[in-house]
């Protein structure tokens, strides 16, 4: 009888979440091991991490020229910009409705939702829609988006403890997923997840524990993301078993140095991306196409 080394696996499993529908449905999560920990056959990582590219609903101010370069002819048209992201190979478009914020242009919900529809129709990949985290405005915008894009299974966020109810209810009614966002606090994250899970099944929830950039508190965000996976996979905490989105592109590129030197910015975003990748993030939201290529290679 030949010897077989004992294999120690974990009992917890990350929930598999589907975003989009039909041909453009993309699965994330589903792993029962930690990221990059598949040395033997302890478990599976059936859906490798996915990459989202950022599109703004208004012309961005203060972006480094090299980040804007691939889109410079389309930045005033979010639909064309989104199309470009798809051509560059993004798995998702991450549409940031920054103009809807009362501190920006206070775009009315109807207009914001109409734009989301236009972007959605221009692409063939699934769509993530983020507002700015303004508890006064977000519910009106995201519930309208949910209604106008009813049944399309977008990923809508962020929902925070102050506004989760109306948004989650709209997502339930119109068939979308939501992002549960807590401020780098694993205990508050769980509390919000528990409350959300009373409205939506776990298969409709993605976690955003926030992701700061290298040099700006990445240690905290890394630890919280990593521990979330530990608690979910190793300790079987059902409320921490949803996939994680790491949204760090803006955090990297808002800093002075990446705006001054392209190669430094690329390295910066790469290290940040790889860190969250190692922490177990299932979706990475990033900006520079070169970083995207490196990370894509790592994933495959």
């Amino acid at each position: 009888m030949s010897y077989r080394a004992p294999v120690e696996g974990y009992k917890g499993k990350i929930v598999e979440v589907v975003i989009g529908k039909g041909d453009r449905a993309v699965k994330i999560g589903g792993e029962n091991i930690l990221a990059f920990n598949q040395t033997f056959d302890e478990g599976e990582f059936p859906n490798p991490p996915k990459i989202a590219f950022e599109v703004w609903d208004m012309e961005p101010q203060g972006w480094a020229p090299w980040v804007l370069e691939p889109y410079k002819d389309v930045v005033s048209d979010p639909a064309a910009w989104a199309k470009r992201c798809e051509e560059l190979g993004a798995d998702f478009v991450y549409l940031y409705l920054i103009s809807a914020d009362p501190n920006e242009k206070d775009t009315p919900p109807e207009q914001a939702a109409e734009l989301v529809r236009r972007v959605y129709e221009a692409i063939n990949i699934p769509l993530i829609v983020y507002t700015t985290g303004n508890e006064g405005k977000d519910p009106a915008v995201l519930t309208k988006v949910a209604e106008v894009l009813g049944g399309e299974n977008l990923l809508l966020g962020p929902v925070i403890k102050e506004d989760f109810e109306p948004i989650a209810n709209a997502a339930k009614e119109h068939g979308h997923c939501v992002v549960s966002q807590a401020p780098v606090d694993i205990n508050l994250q769980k509390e919000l997840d528990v409350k959300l899970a009373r409205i939506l099944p776990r298969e409709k929830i993605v976690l955003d524990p926030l992701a700061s950039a290298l040099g700006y508190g990445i240690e905290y965000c890394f630890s919280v993301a990593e521990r979330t996976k530990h608690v979910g996979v190793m300790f079987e905490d059902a409320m921490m078993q949803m996939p994680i989105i790491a949204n760090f592109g803006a955090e990297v590129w808002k800093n002075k140095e990446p705006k001054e030197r392209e190669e430094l910015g690329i390295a910066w975003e790469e290290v940040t991306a790889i860190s969250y990748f190692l922490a177990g993030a299932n979706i990475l939201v990033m900006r520079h196409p070169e970083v995207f290529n490196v990370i894509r290679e790592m994933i495959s």
Partner: protein
Amino acid sequence: MVLIGENLHIISQKVSDAVTQKDKKTLQQMATEQAEAGMDYIDLNVGPARKDPEVMGWLAEVVQEVLDVPLALDSTNPLAVEAGLKAAKWPPLINSASGKQESKERMLPLAAKYDCEVILSVLTDQGIPSDAETRAESIMDTAAYANDLGIENERMWIDPILLPVSVAQQGVVACLEFTQMLPDLLPGVKSTIGLSNISNGVPEELRGILNRTYLVMLQRYGMHSAIVDAFDAELRDLVRGNLPGVVDVIHKVMDGEDVDLAFLPPKERDYAKTTKVLVGKILYSHTWLET
């Protein structure tokens, strides 16, 4: 278990006002209520009392006018503690000294000079130790220093420093481990803990069950005393052995026994869920009783 009543605390507006207005009656009443609730010591927390360290002496006299209960003199200011020591009729407890250099130099010698007992925390100039082992290392150093001053182990009440479960769940587990280790580390010492800190930041109506569950757990591991909310009657019942059913459930969960929550009465079920959080089996959130 020796219980130290925490309710005469300068952070309380009522206490703060009464102290400022030299309102003896209110303070005496608050102390008396705690004694009547069965507290073995009354803690007098005057904060740092930088402007008026003598306030501790005054407060000790005020309480002793109406009560024959030993006092815990609670301040980080050695001058305030010494004022209390001079005024105390019964051998008091210093609350507290630590491994911080300043405390070793100025607070600990008071315990030697006045031949009294002293709470010794694991705090050092490096901060609060993160796990049970570093707590052990830190307290060994500080206790050795205290021994050199002539303070024998029997006069030390070791405080592992409890942090809120809502921000430092691992620390809660570490304090349990440390409590188990303590008799081997420093034979003869007593121990104590600032219990209510475990539920700081937790919604008010949920604080009690965390405090109570944790105290039962600590009691099982030989914790000698705790600084507690004197008016939590259920807490007193639990540690005095009047609620054996609840204690039994807590112990079973601590032992990792398969407790079927569905078959427990609601109260025992809540205690079982709370124990699971406090042994570190379940990640803390404010919703822990609801899932």
